[in-house]
């Protein structure tokens, strides 16, 4: 009984906390404690949201276009990272030659923050889709490779010994034992890679873009419109959360297919 009561109380407290935050924020702006040029109230942000659904002004595109542009860039880069990173990581984990050849290069590239790739990416691929996809790819690749690599390395040695005593070849062990063993770890990497990709996307769009959510934020600053900035930030957060949930769902289904 006491336990239930306490949980109820904590839940209410959480709701109160959120409500208080938004209320306080609204009041701070309404009473002019913070000037409206620096902070927009939640109400203004919502108004901006409704306005931007159908109006391309003042930044040249409706909200939907910004979201779609960002999504397209992010998902393309992300999928490319998966397609290249996962097989590479898996192979690095099992085949000595692949590890020996790929690892030094990977270790050299790994500590470079994705943001640092932006200037080169623009040089090489321009400020269009390709440039941003490259940056996102570079940031998503690292977690994909690391998790797949570690997943294979963590394969229970008893399984490998068992397969060897039956006379399985290296390739058979890799295919039948190492890859399925590594899958949970690989899936774990998907979320990490997604978060990294999404951050890189915003950074890329801040520097060079003519549409996209990052661009929306930059335009908000140039036009001194805090409501637009905050709208952009919230859309970034929201979209990120939604893709995260979708990936999580896909992951759960796939893992369920593999493990149970």
């Amino acid at each position, binding site marked *: 009984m006491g336990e239930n009561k306490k949980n109820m109380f904590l839940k209410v407290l959480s709701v109160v906390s959120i409500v208080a935050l938004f209320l306080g924020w609204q009041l701070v702006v309404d009473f002019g404690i913070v000037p409206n040029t620096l902070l927009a109230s939640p109400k203004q942000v919502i108004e901006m949201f409704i306005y931007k659904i159908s109006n391309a002004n003042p930044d040249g595109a409706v909200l939907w276009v910004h979201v779609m542009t960002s999504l397209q860039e992010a998902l393309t880069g992300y999928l490319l990272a998966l397609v290249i990173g996962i097989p590479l990581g898996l192979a690095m984990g099992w085949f000595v030659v692949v590890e020996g050849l790929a690892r030094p290069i990977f270790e050299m590239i790994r500590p*470079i923050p994705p943001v640092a790739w932006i200037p080169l990416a623009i040089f090489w691929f321009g400020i269009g889709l390709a440039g941003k996809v490259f940056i996102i790819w570079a940031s998503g690749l690292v977690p994909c490779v690391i998790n797949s690599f570690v997943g294979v390395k963590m394969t229970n040695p008893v399984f490998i010994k068992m397969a060897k005593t039956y006379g399985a070849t290296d390739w058979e062990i890799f295919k039948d034992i190492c890859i399925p063993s590594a899958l949970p770890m690989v899936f774990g990497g998907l979320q990490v890679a997604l978060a990294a990709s999404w951050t890189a996307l915003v950074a890329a769009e801040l520097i060079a873009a003519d549409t996209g959510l990052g661009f929306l934020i930059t335009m908000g600053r140039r036009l001194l419109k805090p409501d637009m900035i905050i709208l952009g930030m919230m859309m970034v957060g929201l979209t990120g959360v939604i893709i995260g949930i979708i990936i999580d769902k896909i992951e759960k289904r796939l893992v369920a297919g593999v493990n149970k």
Partner: protein
Amino acid sequence: MSKILEANPNTEVLEGARSSFSIKKILYNKYVLYVISICLFLIVLDLFAVLQVFGNFMPRPIEVLTTLINMTVTPLAGKTLPMHLWASLRRVLIAFAIAVFIGVPVGVLMGFSSVANAIISPIFHLFKPMPPIAWISLAILWLGIGEASKVFIIVIGAIVPCILNSYNGIRLVDESLKDALRMLGGNRRQEIIEVIFPASFPAIFAGLQISLSMAWTTVLAAELVGAREGMGFIIVMGMNLSKPSMIIAGMIVIALTAFMISMAVNYLERWVCPWKTELETTE
């Protein structure tokens, strides 16, 4: 039959004996492969540069090296490379200190008190999905283009792992260790000092580690927009001046710094909690 076995080269590879010169064995040696890999990488880069695969935007490795050396002695925008590096590092350190100073106590408080957790965590989770870089515009609007806005953005990036790891560190302390102390007659105060703090320390420390590398990533992003010094500034300059060798030299320094930071933190950890790091090296 045993003679044949002794001559089997496969035996030697697995045994790691000294005296056999099979090509296969040399090619399968990790370190040999590492060297081959790096050489190949550099050669391919050079080829790309010479064949102008990316137009003029791919410098030859040797050019990058000369630029790097050049930049360490010749000032760029009034500062040499080490001074730019220090400008970035200073921002990182200030912001990191602020993030730790605020984040760890908040996380610890959330770990201990379910009421504090109920109040803080929804707000925390509301802000968490927004990448720190998305704050740039707002930060510039609020704090101008100077140091304060950059530090602000870095703090936003660095504080998340501090809070998260401190919270989980405190919350996920092995219950049986608490039981063990209680069975030895420990009271609540002794439980906190003798068990909860030392047991959560590795998690908190890991949080600091992530936080520091987050800070380093974020500082670059912050410097990409309107900075007059720092490593981010150098690569932006490289872009504006169309000097890719400068960008790559900057990236090398950035990567090396990131690497050195993580090495330093690893050593620090080995030093402050030997009982944990030894575990990782022995197993």
